[in-house]
């Protein structure tokens, strides 16, 4: 064995000690069940290169959906005009903004799982940090598509850049929409760099183990990485800086998204708690999406059953439960203060939320975001069940979509000018465009899984080096060393 935790000499000897507690610990925890590095490398490489015809059929169908539902519908909207969308008085922002917030929310998972858990040295994160980081980059790309689609004349997007232009105007940096532009772009660039840096050693591993066109591409992407002490030192320092610095950026992004609404003096929007409420909502949808992705990877990719285990479902399920409680807390805070305020327009809006034509959506939001996670995720056996955990994750994301739907088009129906009140919002071409972005997100992920090592092998091995089992009396106890 290569660099092994020397306290684990019997890693694969559990067959003769099936009922032993120590063997049970090793089966349960990836960090206590090391394999030789070469074997882990081979498993990850094989998971990337083993592709069945079913994979390409699914990819082809998704590509078709992207071509028709996303680019086809978007192109048709550009040629015909934004009237094809649900934008109309008083629902000026329609579903494009719902979907922007939805995708930005999903994107928070990567940073949360990777950076926050790295900062706090939470060990179960190691095998799926990259899977989560990929979600961030791909989800932000979908959010960007929604923003560009909402612009209508997308070829004038460069007006958002602070460059002198033919209008003889500079952009107004006191506008929340401009802050959004800065924050989302900062987050996109930062999370892409944060994805790439820890990928370099794995790309070097892939370079060393591949041939043909793959070797040529990995060779370029690995940048000549060898693994010298100096290279690791620079990488470690940079990853620490990123992990700490990207967290406030993550919080700022969804806080600023919330300010798009909260700075307006509108009933339902003008709330001082909207910032943290949006952040916890983003984590709610993002972590649920991470759970779904991890389950799909575990059951569709070769050898992933070694890297992703029930302990990871359990940990993600616990996170989902805690975040659901946090979301409920902030939702109730937001609701309570508005309800207590006595403002007649706000009262009308709250009544409209619950008893208007979309009232069922409001109740569905509470059921899927609070009732179902609380009823299900307290149970260890259910958290570890992939079907149940996937279903709860999916329902949470439906619920979080509903929350954004209530905040944007539903809340826009009731304002401070009753002659402009609406009753019902009718979605338009945003629906196929959204379906197209969902397909695009899955397609990008599938293609990335064929090309990028989804498991950061060096991080897994580093974690395995740090873990060992010690005996206190007769009780085997897991211990973790501080290697940095």
């Amino acid at each position, binding site marked *: 064995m290569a*660099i092994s935790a020397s306290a684990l000499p019997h890693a694969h000897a559990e067959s003769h000690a099936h009922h032993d507690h120590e063997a049970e610990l090793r089966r349960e925890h990836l960090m206590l069940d090391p394999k030789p590095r070469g074997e882990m490398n081979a498993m990850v490489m094989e998971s990337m290169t083993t592709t069945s015809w079913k994979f390409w059929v699914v990819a082809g169908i998704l590509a078709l959906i992207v071509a028709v539902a996303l680019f086809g519908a978007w192109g048709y909207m550009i040629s015909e005009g934004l009237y094809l969308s649900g934008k109309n008085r008083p629902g000026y922002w329609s579903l494009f903004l719902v979907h922007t917030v939805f995708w930005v929310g999903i994107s928070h998972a990567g940073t949360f799982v990777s950076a926050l858990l790295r900062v706090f040295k939470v060990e179960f994160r190691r095998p799926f940090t990259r899977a989560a980081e990929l979600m961030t980059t791909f989800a932000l790309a979908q959010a960007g598509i929604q923003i560009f689609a909402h612009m209508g004349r997308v070829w004038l997007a460069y007006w958002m850049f*602070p460059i002198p232009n033919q209008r003889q105007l*500079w952009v107004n*940096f006191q506008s929340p929409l401009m802050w959004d532009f800065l924050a989302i772009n900062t987050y996109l660039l930062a999370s892409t760099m944060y994805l790439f840096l820890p990928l370099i050693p794995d790309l070097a591993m892939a370079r060393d183990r591949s041939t043909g066109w793959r070797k040529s591409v990995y060779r370029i992407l690995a940048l000549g990485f060898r693994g010298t*002490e100096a290279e690791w030192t*620079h990488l470690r320092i940079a990853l620490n800086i990123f992990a700490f610095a990207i967290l406030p950026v993550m919080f*700022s992004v969804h806080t600023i998204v919330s300010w798009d609404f909260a700075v307006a003096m509108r009933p339902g929007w003008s709330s001082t708690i909207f910032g943290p409420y949006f952040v916890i909502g983003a984590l709610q949808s993002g972590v649920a999406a991470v759970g779904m992705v991890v389950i799909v990877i575990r059951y569709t990719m070769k050898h992933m059953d070694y890297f992703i285990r029930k302990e990871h479902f359990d940990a993600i399920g616990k996170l989902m439960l805690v975040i659901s409680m946090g979301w409920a807390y902030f939702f109730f805070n937001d609701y309570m203060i508005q309800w207590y305020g006595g403002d007649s327009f706000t009262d009308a809006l709250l009544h409209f939320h619950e008893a208007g034509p979309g009232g069922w959506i409001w109740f569905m939001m509470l059921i899927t975001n609070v009732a179902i996670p609380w009823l299900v995720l307290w149970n260890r056996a259910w958290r570890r069940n992939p079907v149940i955990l996937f279903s709860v994750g999916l329902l949470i994301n439906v619920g979080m979509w509903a929350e954004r739907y209530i905040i944007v088009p539903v809340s826009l129906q009731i304002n401070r000018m009753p002659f402009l009140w609406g009753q019902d919002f009718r979605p338009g071409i945003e629906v196929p465009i959204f379906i197209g972005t969902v397909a695009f997100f899955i397609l990008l992920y599938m293609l990335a899984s064929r090309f990028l090592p989804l498991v950061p092998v060096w991080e897994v091995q580093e974690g395995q080096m740090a873990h060992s089992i010690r005996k206190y009396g007769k009780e085997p106890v897991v211990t973790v060393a501080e290697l940095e």
Partner: protein
Amino acid sequence: MTEKNLLLAIFEDIDPAAHAVDKLRELGVTDEHVTVISGTPITEAMLGRKPQWSNVTRFALGGAFVGLCVGIFLAYGTPQLYPIVVNARWIGVPPTIVVMFELTMLLMLISTFLGVFLDSRFPNYTPTEYVPEISDGRIALLIECGGELEAAVEAAMKSIGAESVKRAQAEAL
């Protein structure tokens, strides 16, 4: 001038590699002439070596400062160039904090990223001393020693448990 040779000693585990570093010192090969290469981060402390110098933090701080300056320019400078008078005053301070924060963080992180490239001399596609076994978990010591020491170093490395000791050759990665 004494002839200098490059030897590549491959170890399977970290303990013999750490002993090898000590042994090399005894033979008169200083730390500056030994490069440790591994597929998993091994801290200097594990091998009893001096911490590596890195400028990444300095790049990050420099980038943060430049970002703050750019943020100040965008938030306070551009309204002076193209004034839009809002609410009888030119610039409200709180919104400028958002702009300055985002630009500071953006430039800091970009500088950190570029700092890794500059400090590590990435990208580097020239042939170099390396063996693919390293990414499979082996630890390599790249030893620069005088020709008269070569035999002694090779014998010492093998006695400590090196899998192989050979003349290092630069090869395309």
